[in-house]
């Protein structure tokens, strides 16, 4: 078997690694909101710890999608496009705040907000997990087919 290291393969490898990070982000997110819901954390502290992570997460996700774009991995890009749009939209609708981030301690305890964020966390976790295997598959395929 000939294996060649194409750019597509490279982008999948990067995506694989980054996606692992994103999975951690999502888990952290879920835990954080669960803690909020069960009273263990002060919302101010929780927001302070969550907000700085929002943009990095978006950036990481965007980063390997740009790699996909460059590599011409259209299908992979297409899979991620909805999430990118969601991120953009989500960030546009964020509450008025000076710092980066999405979460406002004064409204985060609202039931809807809380449950929405929790749901978002789980959905993202599922998405990243599935994507992880997809990238793995994509990497192998591109390595093989590139030969």
């Amino acid at each position, binding site marked *: 078997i000939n294996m060649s290291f194409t750019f597509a393969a490279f982008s999948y490898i990067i995506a694989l690694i980054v996606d692992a990070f994103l999975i951690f982000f999502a888990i952290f997110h879920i835990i954080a909101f669960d803690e909020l819901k069960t009273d263990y954390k*002060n919302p101010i502290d929780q927001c302070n710890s969550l907000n700085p992570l929002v943009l990095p997460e978006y950036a990481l996700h965007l980063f390997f999608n740009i790699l996909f774009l460059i590599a011409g991995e259209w299908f992979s890009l297409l899979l991620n496009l909805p999430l990118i749009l969601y991120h953009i939209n989500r960030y546009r609708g964020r509450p*008025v*705040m000076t710092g980066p981030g999405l979460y406002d301690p004064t409204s985060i305890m609202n*039931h809807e907000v809380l449950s929405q964020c929790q749901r978002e966390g789980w959905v993202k976790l599922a998405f990243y997990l599935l994507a992880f295997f997809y990238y793995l598959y994509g990497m192998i395929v591109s390595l093989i087919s590139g030969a």
Partner: protein
Amino acid sequence: MERLPPPVMNGGAAGQPQQQRFSSLPSLRPLGGFQSPQPPPSMTLKPSTNVVPPPGPPRLDGSLMNGPPSALPPRVSLGGNFRPLFVNGQPGQLSGPPARPPTGPAQRSVVGHLVPPNVSPAGPPLKPPLGSGPVTTSSSPLINGHQRPSPPTNLPESISNRSSNRSSRQPSPIPTSQLDRMEMQATPVSGLTPSGSLTNLNEGFCPPTSRSQSSSSLVDESAKISPRMSPRMSPITTTTVSGQSLPVNGTPVSMSLSSEPSVSGTPVSNMPLNRTVGSPFQSSGQVANQTQVHLSDSVSSHSNSSPSTVQSSVSGHISMASSNVPSLSRRPISGSSVSGNHLSSASGTVPGKITHTAKPTSGPQSGVPSVSGTQHFIQKGSVGPSLAAQTHLATSTVPSSSVAASVASFAASNSPLVAQHSAVASVALSPSVGARPAVSAPMSNNIRRSVGPLPPSVGPPLASMGPQRSFGPPSTMDYRLTSLGPPQTSMGSPQMLMGPPQTSMGPPMLTSMGAPRPSLGPPPTSMGPPPTSMGPPPTSMGPPPASMGPLPTSMGPPPASMGPLPTSMGPPPTSMGPPPTSMGPPTLMGPPTSMGYRPTGVPPPMSTQGTAQPGSFPQYPGQQQQFQPQFRPSGPPNVTQLSQQLGGLSVTRDGWNKIWGTHPLDLLQQRQVLPPEGVVPPKPVLAQDYLPNCSPDIFRCTLTKIPETKSVLQKARLPFGMLIHPFKDLEHLPVVSCNTIVRCRSCRTYINPFVVFKGERRWECNLCFRVNELPEEFQYDPVSRTYGDPSRRPEVREATIEFIAPQEYMLRPPQPATYLWVLDVSRQAVDTGYLKIVCDVLLAHLDKIPGDRRIMIGFITFSNSVQFYLMGEDQKHVQMLEVGEIEEMFVPNPEDLLVNLEQSHSLVEDFLSTLPEAHAATFQTQSALGPALQAAYKLMSPIGGRITLMTTTLPSVGPGALKAREDPNQRAGKDIQNMGPATDFYKKLSLDCSGQQIAVDLFTLNSQYVDLATLTGVSKFSGGCIHHFPNFHVTRNPASVNPFMSCLTRYITRKIGFEAVMRIRATRGLAITNFHGNFFVRSTDLLSLPNINPDAGFGMQVNIEESLHNIRTACFQAALLYTSSKGERRIRVHTLCLPVSPNMHEVITAVDQQAVIGLLAKMAVDRCLSSSLSDARDALINACVDGLTAFKISLSSPAHGALEVPPTLQLLPLYTLALVKSIAFRGGLSTKLDDRLFAMCELKTLPLKHLITFIYPDLYPIHMLSEKGALNVDDQVIPQPGRLHLSAERLERCGAYLMDTGTTIYIYVRSGISSNWVEGTLGVPSYAVIPQPLYEDALPVLDTMDSQLLCNFVSHLQRNKPYHAPVLVLKEDNPARMMFIQHLVDDRTESSHSYIEFLQFLKTQIK
């Protein structure tokens, strides 16, 4: 309980020693015995533990109740931390102890090295005061709180956990012997007795037992200590005692901690404490407080333990004192009397025995100037020799007679209760007799009703007995008896129980009895909510008898039990029910809502069975008597007969519906839906209606019947939520002080009237259903001085109660009342003239500011720059410091900016009288509001308190500067922009404030846009309040002056609670989802309220997360923990209990429409901010449509072409329309953005009663007031004109009308008014010459009948407002009439529907 968020500031290493001081002492529970009140078991403990029991609390209560409480370690003064804290915390700018001057230098020095080496002979210096005793456990589990405090019963809920990061401070769970505080107070407290009497009680209490107790302990102490002390209490002496500290400070300062001599004198206790006994009550509401104070005080130094302990404790204190000085927030625990004894002992005057631990009689107390504050700041030399003398007085013995009298009175007051209790007992018994255990409670209740006025004991006579015997399992009876107490009563009760059912149901009884019997075995569950009850007897008739038992409905016709089954019943008929049998006179039922309620009527079954029967059943209440005899025969169950009768009901359903007020109305036909006498809030109908429920003024639910499942709620399509006014000024507030506040161990619910007692020793939580142990002291009944019946305690007799919190509920010593005023002195502000008014009002009420002697006050002004004012006591003049560096705000001088009001009183007065002139010539037009707030925050953060911010202009420079965003051309647009904040600067600042227990109250007196949308953030999240006086100007708009002044007066003098948190708990299965009001939500059910004021209302939405099957009632409990202005930690608990219903129709007919509209308004405001205005309007209308639609669906045969609503929803469309047209939500009319935003804030925070007036003002005709139907209050005849719809068609041409909008009262005089009336009320000859505008003295008090009546009426209206509303007289032909006309919301305007149009619109929407 809710804990304070740990103060942030204490951080570093410096904090450590302090923490130690707070080490928690596990309270030693008395080993043994509670048996006899007399000898406190604690005594026995003494030797072994090394700790001495607190000197017997002189009070009666103390001895009795406390008996068990055993030895408590000497109390540690909490005060300590406070001061040092800031020092450490704010090294930079606030280098010194920031605020508090008095302690000044000495303390600081102390802080550096905490304890002088030679301090105490006894213990190691740094040791925590308590250290020596075994008691002291350094461990404060709470500290960082990952674990809950071990002491089981009342663990405070550790808030600290939640805000773990911040918490560095230990909670001070020192279980001081608060023995005394406890119980008895409870007694007076109980509120059963009139407050006035209470006071007497307290003072008078001196139980003999306590004396003996105290004496023993004291003796040792006195002996040992006395030598050290100088004989008399001269200040110096004190020094020596507490002593050792003196050298350290070099100044006597530390000594003076206790303002009162007695306190200071006490060797061990630095405890302050002297609560002034004699102080006059300020308000009736406060009476209770004071009482407790008395009671509570005393324990103080339990110091008397073995010498070693004492000494160590002393040293501890000293160190504390030195470090903390000013803060002083000690808790007033120590009793003055106790301390007094100590003193005497110490002084040597009382040598060996201090047998009389007397409580200070009232006499001595009065003699002593009231030292209300626990400690006040130390003044140099303030401790005069005179104090000693006073102390002495205090020691004098108490008049026993007064005590006795008070006790007697108390007992008397309780006597009625006793009867009730017996009823309760009977309830418990009932199960054993025959019915299912679960049912018992309701049954008894029913019984009572059926019996009518007769006390339960009377019961149905012999006939009823019959059954009893037959069932009569004596064995079961006995079983019960043991648990319940007096057998006799129990016997009586069973009779009762039996009685009613017989009468009503005759036949079923037998069957029911028989069946259950075997099951009786497990009586223990008796009270509890019988899971089975609701259920299900699906079989319609056959088994019903059996089922009856458990069902609350048991009262009436047993078939009622069937009712609950949704399936079986038709919806509507339910309401009709069998009320006649059960209820007795139907008139009693009053509120239509009651109908739905199961116990009263057994509605549902009716329909099902109805098919079978002809209506032989008597329909109307009047016939009830006949009815009963019929059934008397109580023969064997005659099912068919029964069903026949029930069936009859269905035929006559309509008649009943009318009588009970549940008949659907056709709104299109009904022009007058507003009840002229005002809307009476529906009362939740509980099976146990003898239980006190929370007043609807305080706590209301939108549904007075809770849907059993989420699907029922969804079908009902009504908002489900609560509205609460937690800190309302109350006239009768029972206050309890006890060692252990009884709470559920798993959910921390406070014990309340709706818990179920299981025998003597256990109770079942009504929220989580855990069975808890009852502390022994709770079973003591102070009235009869017996044990065993916990149901007599005030905690289970009052749905609103206040506890004096023990120390576990504090994270730091209670803060002093601290007020900081931040005033705008820019050119525009000075022009309005508001500054002078503020200063004048403040000056006039300086003495009425709530607080003790520790009150601190400060002022900051701002324009282009920020000015501070030095007012230290040692200064001759007020000195102004101006800071121009607004980008990097700092506080120029941490001391003397916040000063003790008492010590700097004259300087403050000088300042207030000169401030207006000082800035009169300013030309600064900018507003550095942001920086001023930052400075205020920095200044206050070590202490917490209240910042009052007054501004007239848009903040324009420095951080927080805003831009004018409003486009005046868009004011009338459909959708309004810029309703959200422009920056989060204010929000962030308010969160910081919230973390430091600071609230910011905002007053805007603007004529231009100030961006309330952004500015209000500073109050919204810090628990502040918001007041808006648009176009305020002293000369140009004189009408605005009076409201401002009266508002300000109320603001300054009203009650206030500091560092508060409120937690709302609900029965398991219900979850609170959203909160509305001004606060910060710290966790799912905890609101952080740096300040709480009596005018703040809150709302919350509730969700049903688990079905409430098998639960007959659902409860909500709101607990507000706060620090009173007197430095006491208190918990106010409100409990509301509501029945649960599985039937959607019942739910809808039990709606509280005012609460619904109140909650909808709050939700709509949220919608506005998150979405858009038009969205919010649509949502409101949809909510109304949904509610009416759901009702229509629930009707079996809706009338065609009619808009049918239940009486409980008849106002919903009216209110909805008014809300849509209100300033907050209206479109089309030009509305300033600020006014709109302010109206939204009002909707969010007004208590419901005021909110309704705000939405739908009250309109009264006043041209023909008469005494007919008038109230008579205080010999004043108050006419009661009926309310009118807000429509021009109701205004007769020759009439005069009064409209009460809550904040303003308009009197609108139409042109056709008779001259007589005008002359008789306004004092001018005719309509034509009525002066306009009439601002001052709008209503002259004349010597005519008309004038008298009108003035009485107006003053009656005024009494119900937080502060007086201005009265404006408007003539029909004056353009100013628009102020009145705009409130006529029933009429159509260019852009909105009239009420009739709106109804027609609704009709098209309801499918």
